């Protein structure tokens, strides 16, 4: 073999290992909580046991295949049934199982212990985003929605994909390092699941019920996960991002959020005009409605109804308001009244009634939504 050839192979291997770095993750992610660490180790132990059994069982099988072939002239013996052997091979696996069940049990008791948390955050699954409400501890009262922030162009291949493609959100959940965070999970529509592999956390969010889980992140950083339970069309597009900050930075973040929320609170008695509401409604529409009804208001034929030119968006406004507030049972249309403020609902309905070919010219004021809620 010439030297050049060796070099070429070396370069190819290097390139391959480089690629492996980029796109071939093959083990559990590096744990950043104790629970995730325990799981990581349990998995290693199990793999060790399995490897030993694998080598034993298939060593025997392939030796037998090699040595006891008809083609090499091996004559069949006629032994069968041996109670001693059969008891031994039932008992040994049983003992191995008890040996692994013990550490697993300890780990379960630990990961189910959600008591005495420092911070409690409620995570609500929506089709298809997460909402976070800080219920107790530092940051109490903070509340926001967390949407996928990857641009549509990257998904459809019109733009190059970014580093955190599909694993990035507009507003991540933010928590302080080293604090026990209890996460209460529920859902607004169908079952979702909140998963952050680096924390060793996965918990279903079930509509109408509250479940909980917890984590204590031991390292600052940004940790990413995804919805893990099939929840409809955009199941693959509702990631979870948790930013773990130092205590000081977390306090600063809390202060910032409180200011933002105070500023964002709308004066309920303000009279809005058409262009103001339309501009705001377009944003609300892009964040909440576009996934099904589409940017052009045409929906998806047979699955999600069009709004452009529809009876709903051009007919009596009362019905339109009611559908947006309360959703439509048995369809993916969620009751947005629980997620959006009066102003946002008013804005989005105004937008829908005045966008595309819809030209009702109607302006729906937030006060109207407020009274419709009652």
């Amino acid at each position, binding site marked *: 073999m010439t030297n050049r050839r060796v070099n070429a192979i070396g370069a190819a291997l290097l390139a391959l290992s480089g690629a492996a770095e980029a796109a071939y993750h093959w083990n559990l992610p590096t744990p950043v909580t104790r629970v995730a660490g325990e799981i990581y180790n349990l998995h290693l132990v*199990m793999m060790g046991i399995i490897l030993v059994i694998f080598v034993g069982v298939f060593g025997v099988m392939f030796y037998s295949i090699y040595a006891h072939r008809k083609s090499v002239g091996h004559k*069949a013996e006629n032994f069968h049934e041996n109670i001693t052997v*059969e008891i031994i091979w039932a008992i040994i696996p049983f003992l191995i199982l008890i040996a692994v069940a013990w550490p697993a049990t300890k780990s379960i008791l630990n990961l189910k212990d959600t008591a005495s948390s420092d911070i409690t955050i409620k995570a609500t699954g929506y089709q298809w985003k997460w909402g976070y409400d800080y219920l107790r501890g530092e940051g109490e009262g903070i509340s926001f929605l967390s949407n996928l922030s990857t641009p549509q162009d990257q998904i459809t291949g019109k733009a190059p994909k970014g580093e955190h493609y599909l694993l990035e959100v507009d507003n991540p959940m933010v928590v302080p390092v080293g604090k026990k965070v209890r996460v209460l999970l529920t859902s607004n529509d169908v079952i979702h699941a909140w998963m952050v592999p680096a924390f060793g956390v996965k918990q279903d969010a079930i509509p109408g019920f509250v479940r909980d889980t917890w984590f204590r992140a031991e390292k600052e950083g940004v940790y990413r996960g995804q919805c893990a339970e099939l929840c409809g069309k955009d*199941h693959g597009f509702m990631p979870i991002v948790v930013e773990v900050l130092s205590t000081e930075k977390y306090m600063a973040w809390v202060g910032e959020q409180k200011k933002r929320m105070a500023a964002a609170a709308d004066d309920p008695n303000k009279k809005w005009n058409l262009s103001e509401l339309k501009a705001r409604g377009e944003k609300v529409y892009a964040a909440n409605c576009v996934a099904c009804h589409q940017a052009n208001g045409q929906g998806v034929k047979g699955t999600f109804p069009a709004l452009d030119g529809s009876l709903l968006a051009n007919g009596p406004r009362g019905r339109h308001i009611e559908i947006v507030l309360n959703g439509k049972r048995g369809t993916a249309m969620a009751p947005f009244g629980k997620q959006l403020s009066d102003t946002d609902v008013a804005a989005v309905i105004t937008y829908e009634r005045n966008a595309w070919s819809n030209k009702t010219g109607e302006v729906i004021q937030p006060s109207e939504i407020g009274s419709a809620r009652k």
Partner: protein
Amino acid sequence: MSAVIDSGHAHDEHAHGPYGGVMRWVTTTNHKDIGTLYLWFSFTMFLVGGMLALAIRAELFQPGLQFWHPEFFNQLTTMHGLIMVFGAIMPAFVGFANWQVPMMIGAPDMAFARLNNWSFWMLPVAATLLVGSFFVPGGASAAGWTIYAPLSTQMGPGMDLAIFALHIMGASSIMGSINIITTILNMRAPGMTLIRMPLFVWTWLITAYLLIAVMPVLAGAITMLLTDRHFGTSFFNAAGGGDPVMFQHIFWFFGHPEVYIMILPGFGIISQVIPAFSRKPLFGYSSMVYATASIAVLSFIVWAHHMFTVGMPTAGILFFMYATVLIAVPTGVKVFNWLTTMWRGSMSFETPMLFAVGFIFVFTMGGFTGLILAIMPIDIQLQDTYYVVAHFHYVLVAGSLFSLFAGFYFWVPKWTGRMYDEKLGKWHFWLSMIFFNVTFFPMHFLGLAGMPRRIPDYALQFAGFNEIASIGAFAFGLSQILFLWIALKVTVLGRGEEAGQRPWDGADTLEWTHLPSPAPYHSFHEQPVLG
């Protein structure tokens, strides 16, 4: 119908039934004809489900959305699952039962011949509803093959068609099972005591009981779903006092025995093939029977290991984890028995044996990953990721499907009187084996790295292994076209060497020792006498 009754009375004069052409198949009450129908039906569904799988893998070849809308992608995964489970694997095993059970116990036919015809002919109706649901407004059900409420209450009319299809398939399975149980318990030749029955018959007897026990449970779950969807009930709707998690409990109470329904007859086939090609009796016949029965019993008390992330109380988690790992014991007994049967035998490796050994190898790997998933803390990381996808394809494709292939190559000489093309059969094995692993082995890594299942698009860190899996899937799919040719050649075209009564010198069940090849249309009108 009167003609059918005639054929029952006077089969000697009507060696091939009263009708020729299509009507022979529509009106047949012959277990061999019905077995053939089941097998062709299931193979057709296997190809349909396979095409859906390739459509899935095409989308997942690269990150980004290339071919399908996310909603349609969900329809693909859902229908792939439903079609493969209810349309391909289950009917294929019933096809084997129809052909083999009467011949292996020395019975002339199945106990309820006309019921047998009906249980088959319900299936194409169900399949039409299922496949046709792609073409109704909103398309097919997109709630996953597990059709979890309340997602499934959101679906369009495609969901209702799927529910009706499942009802019909369930009814067909129950009737088939009643038939199999009655046949086995009442029609064995004198001297064929229960504890002398071939293991394939034993595993089907136990499977049939499982089917009768759990198909009504599925029927209950989907009926409640139907009334939730249309008649205002709230079984699975918390707002009306129901509980979405209850659906999962009921579904998996059916679903876990269901996975054993799809593997136990496979164990039976492997337990016929391994001794035949090792030229040595099965090492522990009775312990194999007991192991099968214990797996069946355990299958009823482990269902919630599919639901470790719903938030069960600790005591519940521990119970289901312990019960689940216990299954490793009888499963281990089976694998050890096959190995000791091979040990010091005189083995030859024709295609059935290749598939049987391949089965042991890959099925055991599926068993290992099952053990890992049973450990609840690890399952927290792996639940609903590609690790689970890898696991159940190892036991369902490499397990059930490979055992079906083994059974086909093993028995087709008896069915047709001709040998299949051995060279092509070996190609089929090696291509299937290699590309199966190329497709599904990387999925373990994807799951460990945290890629959720049932997503149409994924983060860049998952790109490498998805590419490999997609390439493997297309090659695996193409390899099955080779199987179609092999099967056509030996069955429809009737090409291949004459098989002779007993082409496998190690095979010693009744169909080999007492019947010529091909087995006559009506076999055992006189009961064989066993020593």
